């Protein structure tokens, strides 16, 4: 593990990254005929250090019990482990422990909030007007959202009759704020947007957007899936009312996610899933509910996964989130420069030099992303291809699919090189004439692209003429 004396804004030295990679057994395996694995898909899910696996195993071997149920010693120990995990994770994002709700992933966390709005029936007492939605109200999202932060709001709109509005995306990957005042108004009850785009890498100005939202009385829900693992997030200063993220992208286990919400809001929010462990008192007619966070954790919770995620957070803290951020941005710079030197590749999102997250998505002129990904896979380079659960964003960009490389703490500059070398095989395999590549051809973003099936760059649109 890197020494704590290293500069916080420096990327890891070769020695440091080698030591850190030693914590991830999977990184030593080979794929596809003995090729060394080059894993550049951590934006989909990160690998997990041994400490995380050990923590889960120890929980099951030593303390396993249903938490918050039973008075025996194991139940006490398991409950302590679970609540300590909550405290560790809360401290990591600058929150009091009681403001962290465990879910199964970010998707469930976002649904929990969306359902709180529609479950807040106008007849129910006590009620909080901020969560009551009707046809006169509006929901605001953005065009760059992951489906996890879009579909639940579409459904909320359908259930409540409150129209869904969205901020469009500009050609260079930033949100188009020119119509913010007409889209974010006193009708807006909730504004949900991503902190860092999982496709564009764009870092949205959360504090500024939240301030505008709060000025009109809207609640702010931030999808922090691609920020919490990659840069320091402090909810005390972020500006959001809620954030959601997944443990499995933060070096933690699958099956654990986090919803953070301001205590005052969690207190008045209606429950989402109901049943055991979330009640205060139950009769045959009705029930009352435990205070948050228990109110939102129905059933035997994912305690082992929570313990695993706390171990992941402890690992990140020991390495240093600022150093991880610095290392990743140096890797992203190297990748952006390498791609910029290849005129037949077009990166989506902010231009080189703009601060961005750990994901870099691109198109290769004339070759579909699936085919690009297949050639990379053949060299042992794992990336993601497709629309990355952001289909409307891809439509806005005028592409069906992109190839996305995304980095984590354990990636090396050699791996970025390996990706670029493998990429260089693509034009030859698919017979693309490099002399015809147009370095200035942008990816047209505009109403035409959004309208549907137009001829798109970077893919095989074949039609008889």
């Amino acid at each position, binding site marked *: 593990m890197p020494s704590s004396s290293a500069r916080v804004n420096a990327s890891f030295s070769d020695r440091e990254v080698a030591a850190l990679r030693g914590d991830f057994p999977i990184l030593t395996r080979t794929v596809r005929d003995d090729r060394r694995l080059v894993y550049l898909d951590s934006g989909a899910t990160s690998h997990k250090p041994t400490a995380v696996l050990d923590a889960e195993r120890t929980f099951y071997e030593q303390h396993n019990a249903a938490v918050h149920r039973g008075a025996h010693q194991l139940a006490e120990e398991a409950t302590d482990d679970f609540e300590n995990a909550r405290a560790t994770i809360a401290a990591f994002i600058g929150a009091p422990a009681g403001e962290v709700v465990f879910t199964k992933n970010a998707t469930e966390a976002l649904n929990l909030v969306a359902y709180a709005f529609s479950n807040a029936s106008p007849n129910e007492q006590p009620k909080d007007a901020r969560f009551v939605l009707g046809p006169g109200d509006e929901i605001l999202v953005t065009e760059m959202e992951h489906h996890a932060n879009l579909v639940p709001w579409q459904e909320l709109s359908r259930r409540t009759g409150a129209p869904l509005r969205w901020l469009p995306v500009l050609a260079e990957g930033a949100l188009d704020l020119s119509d913010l005042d007409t889209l974010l108004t006193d009708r807006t009850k909730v504004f949900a947007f991503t902190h860092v785009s999982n496709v564009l890498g764009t870092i949205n100005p959360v504090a500024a957007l939240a301030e505008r939202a709060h000025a009109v009385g809207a609640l702010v829900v931030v999808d922090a899936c691609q920020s919490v693992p990659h840069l320091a997030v402090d909810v005390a200063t972020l500006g959001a009312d809620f954030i959601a993220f997944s443990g499995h992208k933060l070096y933690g286990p699958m099956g654990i996610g986090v919803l953070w919400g301001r205590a005052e809001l969690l207190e008045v929010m209606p429950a989402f899933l109901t049943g055991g462990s979330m009640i205060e008192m139950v009769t045959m007619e009705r029930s009352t509910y435990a205070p948050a966070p228990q109110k939102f954790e129905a059933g035997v919770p994912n305690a082992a996964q929570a313990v695993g995620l706390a171990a992941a957070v402890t690992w990140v803290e020991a390495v240093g989130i600022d150093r991880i951020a610095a290392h990743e941005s140096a890797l992203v710079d190297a990748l952006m420069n390498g791609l910029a030197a290849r005129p037949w590749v077009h990166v989506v999102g902010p231009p080189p030099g703009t601060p961005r997250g750990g994901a870099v998505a691109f198109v290769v002129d004339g070759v579909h992303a*699936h085919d690009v990904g297949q050639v990379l896979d053949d060299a042992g380079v794992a990336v993601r291809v497709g629309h990355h659960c952001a*289909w409307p964003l891809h439509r806005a960009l005028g592409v069906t699919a992109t190839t996305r490389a995304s980095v984590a703490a354990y990636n090396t500059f050699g791996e970025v090189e390996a990706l670029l070398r493998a990429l260089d095989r693509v034009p030859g395999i698919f017979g693309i004439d490099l002399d015809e590549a147009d370095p200035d051809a942008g990816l047209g973003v505009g109403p035409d692209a959004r309208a549907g099936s137009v001829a798109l760059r970077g893919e095989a649109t074949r039609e008889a003429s």
Partner: protein
Amino acid sequence: MDLYQELILEHSKRPLRSGLREPFDAEVHHINPTCGDEVTLRVELSGEGADAVVRDVSYRAQGCSISVASTSVLAEEVTGRPVTEALATFESMRAMLTSRGTEPGDAEVIGDGVAFAGVSKYPARVKCALLGWTAFTDALARAGVDISAISTATNPTVATSGSTATQGVSS
């Protein structure tokens, strides 16, 4: 890479019989939800019932080389053939693609389709190769053909040792 056979690259660059033509008896639009690839496909039939013949398959395909090439091979193989033979070709193609590399495919039945044998080793790409073919069987059904005899499962069979199961696992 054995996946990208010359034949596949050739078909993907110059897809045969592409474009949407009139007249047609049914038109379908299929999407691969994992990547957003699309195909619009039309069939024109002549004759009825067991005597029906595929007169034309026309299409607009937008997707990766595997899906475009596979649709091109489909159009080439089934046009002018009796519907019953076309369905047998589909079955044969599907069985090969979902075999996880255990079935090489029969050139007598699927023609250039044998070039896609390598795809079956890449489960994530099987859906690409089948996009046009499932659209075709759907279009036949909409044109009134009874397709109940064929299997429409498109997921690769989970590799069980020594088995060449022809029934895919449904998603």
